[in-house]
């Protein structure tokens, strides 16, 4: 019983939760102030908390999309570029083609899935490394978005009903948070409660082993990338609704925040292990950091919240990565290489 407690306390997710709480308390005290008219402003207000939730939905969705990808020992650098492309396509369907909003959304989701299928097909059918394939599509998707808009067009004037999705509240919470929660629950169930999701870990741990165990490795891996494409399209819709405009640089650089959230959440970058709730904690830790920094008086004076957040997130990713291999390094340090006698070679006992 006692050992269970210790194991639970030392779990990655528990430590991350403690870090998150510490972070939150710090910003609550350092980032909240009372302005001249005696109104409480800054981090400690409920509005600000909802704001954090609203702003973390898109990166949160991308991180959710990346969790199964990274668990299967892959990577998808193109999700944020795909977000930009889908935002533009959605704007074009609605504005230029005159389609009703629901049809435009459905078409965008389908195209997002197709873009993910492009990644998945190249990776599985041609056995190309995910890294270089998605680096190529990273450039391709963003480039297409820029080419379609000629780097200048932005689509605006969306109807109020659509903007409700991104700017209003429903049942007390920001509307898009409900979509985010639904996606989170769905992916959690998929990864943690189905044999289908369990196979992701088997594939990430050892693709050969998974193949010998009879799993359709290629199909599953391709599906993970299709899923990532669809979720990136959902994130694009929410992004467009929040800002009220669709433009080619939507979500520029989000892939870093999403990957950081996943790695911070304890998913192994080598594949084979990871959890969706860990990713959610990672997203929360980054979102609180990013928004909390903007409320600190020092950072406000320097007018450099964006840069600080990027810098700290990059550094955080390095720290998380380094700490994830420390146990392995320590183990290598302690076990000196020594010759083990295998049981079959042991001399038979002279009986």
């Amino acid at each position, binding site marked *: 019983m006692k050992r269970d407690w210790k194991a639970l306390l030392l779990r990655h997710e528990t430590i991350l939760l403690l870090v998150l709480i510490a972070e939150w308390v710090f910003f609550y005290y350092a980032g909240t102030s009372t302005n001249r008219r005696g109104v409480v402003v800054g981090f400690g207000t409920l509005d600000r908390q909802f704001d954090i939730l609203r702003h973390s939905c898109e990166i949160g969705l991308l991180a959710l999309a990346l969790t199964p990808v990274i668990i299967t020992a892959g990577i998808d650098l193109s999700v944020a570029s795909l977000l930009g492309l889908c935002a533009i396509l959605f704007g074009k369907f609605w504005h230029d083609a005159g389609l009703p909003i629901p049809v435009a959304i459905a078409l965008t989701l389908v195209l997002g899935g197709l873009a993910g299928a492009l990644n998945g097909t*190249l990776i599985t059918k041609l056995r190309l490394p995910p890294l270089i394939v998605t*680096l190529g599509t990273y450039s*391709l998707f963003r480039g297409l978005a820029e080419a379609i808009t000629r780097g200048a067009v932005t689509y605006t004037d969306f109807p109020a009903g659509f903007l409700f999705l991104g700017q209003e509240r429903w049942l007390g919470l920001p509307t898009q948070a409900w979509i985010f929660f639904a996606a989170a629950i769905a992916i959690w169930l998929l990864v943690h409660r189905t044999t289908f999701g369990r196979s992701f870990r088997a594939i990430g741990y050892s693709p050969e082993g998974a193949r010998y165990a009879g799993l359709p490795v290629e199909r599953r891996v391709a599906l993970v990338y299709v899923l990532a494409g669809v979720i990136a399209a959902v994130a694009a819709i929410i992004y467009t609704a929040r800002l009220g405009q669709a433009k080619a640089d939507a979500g520029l650089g989000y892939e*870093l925040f999403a990957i950081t959230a996943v790695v911070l959440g304890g998913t192994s970058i080598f594949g084979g292990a990871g959890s969706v709730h860990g990713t959610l904690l990672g997203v929360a830790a980054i979102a609180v950091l990013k928004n909390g920094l903007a409320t600190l008086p020092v950072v406000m004076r320097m007018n*450099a919240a964006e840069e600080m957040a990027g810098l700290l997130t*990059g550094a955080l990713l390095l720290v998380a*990565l380094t700490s994830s291999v420390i146990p392995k390094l320590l183990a290598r340090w302690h076990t000196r290489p020594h010759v083990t006698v295998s049981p079959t070679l042991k001399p038979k006992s002279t009986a």
Partner: protein
Amino acid sequence: MSRYFRELSVAGALIVVLLGLAVFAPAFYQPQPLLSLLTREAPTLIVACGMALVIISRQIDISVGSQFSVIGVCAGLLAAKGWPLGFVLLAAVGIGALLGAVNGVLVAGLGLPSIVVTLATLVTLRQGLNLVRQGEFVNLPDGLQWFGLSQSGGQWTLLIAALVILGLLGWGLRHVAAGRFVYAVGSDTEAARLAGIRPQLCTFLVFVFLGALTGLAAMMNLVQSPQVQPLSGSGLELKVIAAVVVGGVAISGGRGSLWGVFAGLLLLACIAPALIHLRIEAYWEKAIQGAIILLAVVADGVRSRRGGAKS
């Protein structure tokens, strides 16, 4: 013939593009714009040589663009302080080697995947630079541009320097033991270790070398204009990786040559002017770059699958 098939096919594509330009857009061949184009690409070529080594050793470095910007600004500040050119050059190469060493320690020492490590350093360096400099340009002292020579003199100097470095590295990679080690580590790390090579040291040094070459390239960029832009290197990593992959370096390591990289870089460099001369909008450049990367890796994938099926 078959051994150099990949390099020859890139060279063939390059010749087709050049001939196409000669027929449809002869204005491309005016000497002065052509010289300027080649000089602008000289720093990219130097970084691409280093990147080729990294990719041959089965790693990748996507932080070179940020390194390039940081080194450019640092070197510019030193030059503005009145340091002589030689010392600035040494400092730039030194800073580059240091930044490369950070990546090298994390990748080779801790065994972390290079793509994620360099993604983190990419953003850390870029945002750190933005934070400190707030996007300010660095004004360079007068005598620095083109080493104080005339414009065409400076351009020829840079171009010849880049080609000499390319030649030395291309030869060394084939014929010097250290160069062969890079191939050995990239094609089979364990076999290389059993053959007495220290793979971790080799990987580390390859990253340091890329950093040093990036420093050199940043200097070659610095002397081309009277100011240093803080974002001079953004997007450089994609251009460089595209050139390396198009030039026939296998992303799975152990294969490729700098001659192929040279041809690949020239091919990509011709695209932007070709787009302009053929009256296609320049906004397509990024998409076409991505498509070319995909095309190159797909071609490699198809070829290796066919080769694998035969044997």
